[in-house]
């Protein structure tokens, strides 16, 4: 137990941040999956990859709205990237919000171009029109298009993962006790993106059996990874969990949400999809819904469990 952490104040990051973490994970994950399908998938995967691009840009844009709304001075959102006295770019590599802002901006550029390219229907060939250059960048420039997708994927991974780093680079109990939050958010974020694509793909009849199995397999790996990370995460915060400083209601309240994440959000979908032979569209749909609920609950418990630890300074101080 590190009593120094109990002298700090929670930053009042609440619902807007929880929502942003959730949609940010989906946005990054959707782009990553779409890019991977375009890079190593087959032509029949194009419908789902297109869906990924169509999700990624609106999701990250929505996330940005949440982020701006969370600021106490929303109209000064641009101060994140430009120094307000000189209008020069402002970048601090050692400030997670600063580098996160630049990662999001970069990702939005990639996601925006891919979104415009994906607006062209699967059967269309944009020989002219405003969308043609975007379509060409994503699909028609050979190696450069692949490079575009790889670079976009790096920014997508950054978007999905930096939020966890942001929480750990604080002095708050739980957040600062672990270094695994970024990795956990990354796996969980991409897992929720797989779930979103499976749900939409099934609903729109855009997903074939083969791709459904491949996506479910990917999600299984992510869920197994998430499970291992959760065990490691609990071990890393064990010192504070076992310190006796936290009130009993904290354990029962957030403990229940965390149990929901593990049981309903990770174990149950894994059981539903891990056996390829028994994978059906209905079991995949149910698993996807559970993954989304679990992903949201994970962010809720990750953010709020520390936010709600306050005024414990005297307890720790003795």
């Amino acid at each position, binding site marked *: 137990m590190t009593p120094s952490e109990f002298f700090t*104040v929670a930053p009042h*990051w609440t619902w807007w941040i929880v929502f942003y973490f959730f949609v940010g994970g989906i946005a990054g994950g959707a782009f990553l999956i779409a890019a991977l399908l375009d890079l190593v998938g087959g032509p029949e995967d194009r419908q789902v990859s297109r869906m990924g691009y169509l999700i990624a840009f609106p999701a990250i844009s929505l996330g940005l709205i949440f982020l701006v709304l969370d600021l*106490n001075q929303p109209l000064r959102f641009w101060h994140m990237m430009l120094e307000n006295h000189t209008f020069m770019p402002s970048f601090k590599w050692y400030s997670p919000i600063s580098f996160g802002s630049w990662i999001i901006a970069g990702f939005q550029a990639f996601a925006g171009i891919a979104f415009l390219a994906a607006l062209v229907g699967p059967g269309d*060939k944009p020989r002219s029109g405003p969308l043609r250059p975007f379509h060409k960048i994503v699909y028609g420039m050979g190696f450069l298009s692949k490079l575009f997708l790889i670079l976009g994927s790096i920014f997508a991974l950054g978007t999905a993962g930096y939020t966890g780093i942001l929480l750990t680079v*604080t002095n708050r109990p739980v957040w600062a006790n672990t270094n695994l939050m970024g990795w956990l958010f990354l796996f969980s974020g991409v897992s929720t993106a797989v779930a979103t694509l499976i749900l939409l793909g099934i609903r729109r009849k855009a997903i074939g059996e083969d791709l459904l199995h491949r996506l479910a397999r990917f999600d299984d790996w992510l869920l197994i990874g998430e499970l291992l990370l959760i065990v490691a995460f609990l071990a890393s915060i064990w010192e504070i969990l076992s310190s006796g400083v936290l009130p009993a209601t904290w354990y029962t309240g957030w403990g229940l949400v965390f149990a929901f994440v593990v049981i309903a959000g990770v174990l149950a979908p894994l059981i539903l999809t891990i056996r390829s032979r028994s994978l059906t569209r209905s079991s995949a749909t149910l698993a996807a819904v559970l993954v989304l609920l679990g992903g949201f609950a994970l962010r809720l418990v990750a953010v709020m469990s520390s936010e709600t630890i306050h005024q414990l300074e005297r307890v720790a101080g003795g």
Partner: protein
Amino acid sequence: MATMTQTPARREPHGFFTDTTVCIGCKACEVACKQWNQLASETGGQQPLSGDSYDNTQRLDGMNWRHVKFIEQFSADPQRTQQSRWLMMSDVCKHCVRAGCIEVCPTGAIIRTEFDTVVIQADTCNGCRACISACPFGVIDINENAKVAQKCTLCYDRTTIGEQPACSKACPTASIQYGPLNGPNGLKAKAQERVQQLKEQGVDQAQLYGADDKIVGGLNSFYLLVDRPQVYGLPENPQLPSRNLGPSSALTTVGAAVMGLLGLVSLRKKRMDHFAGQPADRER
């Protein structure tokens, strides 16, 4: 609030030395701070009683940049077998030599002044609140009137014209002293002398908190205490938030690499399928 568009010439580090042994809990420092910095009352002047000794301010935040703490150390034994005492301490931003708030601030709103003190520029802060969770002392919070993070500026507007801060000016017992930190007549030398004096008087627990570089590189606002730091609500071993930046980023990068590999292996369309006659038309 002054804004800084260019870096003024660096001057000698200045700060506060708070000798808690002579604090009488009059709260003149709190009043002077509120008055000079125009920090509004939050309850229309009707401060509800906290029930926690004489401490109705309760904490440092965006509206309270000075906070006098009252620590009652009275024996529960009716025979009064143990010494009873009342510790009082005027708390304030520590103006850390290595400041966690400066590290995490994304907008550059938090700056180090020419006096080596730490100031939040109100016109630059956008209220992201990263500094609040980064401060190991729980000093910073949002000022609900200004809608930005705020804390003690060490009266930057006063010190730049050679005046001392409002709190130290108002302190009737010289519990709060302002001045240059180093040198034979600096606050640190004075503080060492005072510790020596107290020890000679039998106050063995007299100690300085933050005067050396062990606590986040040193505190430009440091304290003389006569009990453990935790008793005063001060962390024994405060940490910088950046301690987690390297490991956390490295692990997330490893996670991203693992993720990429898993994705490539899982989502790859089987080679045989590819050869089964499906056109690799990327222009579809």
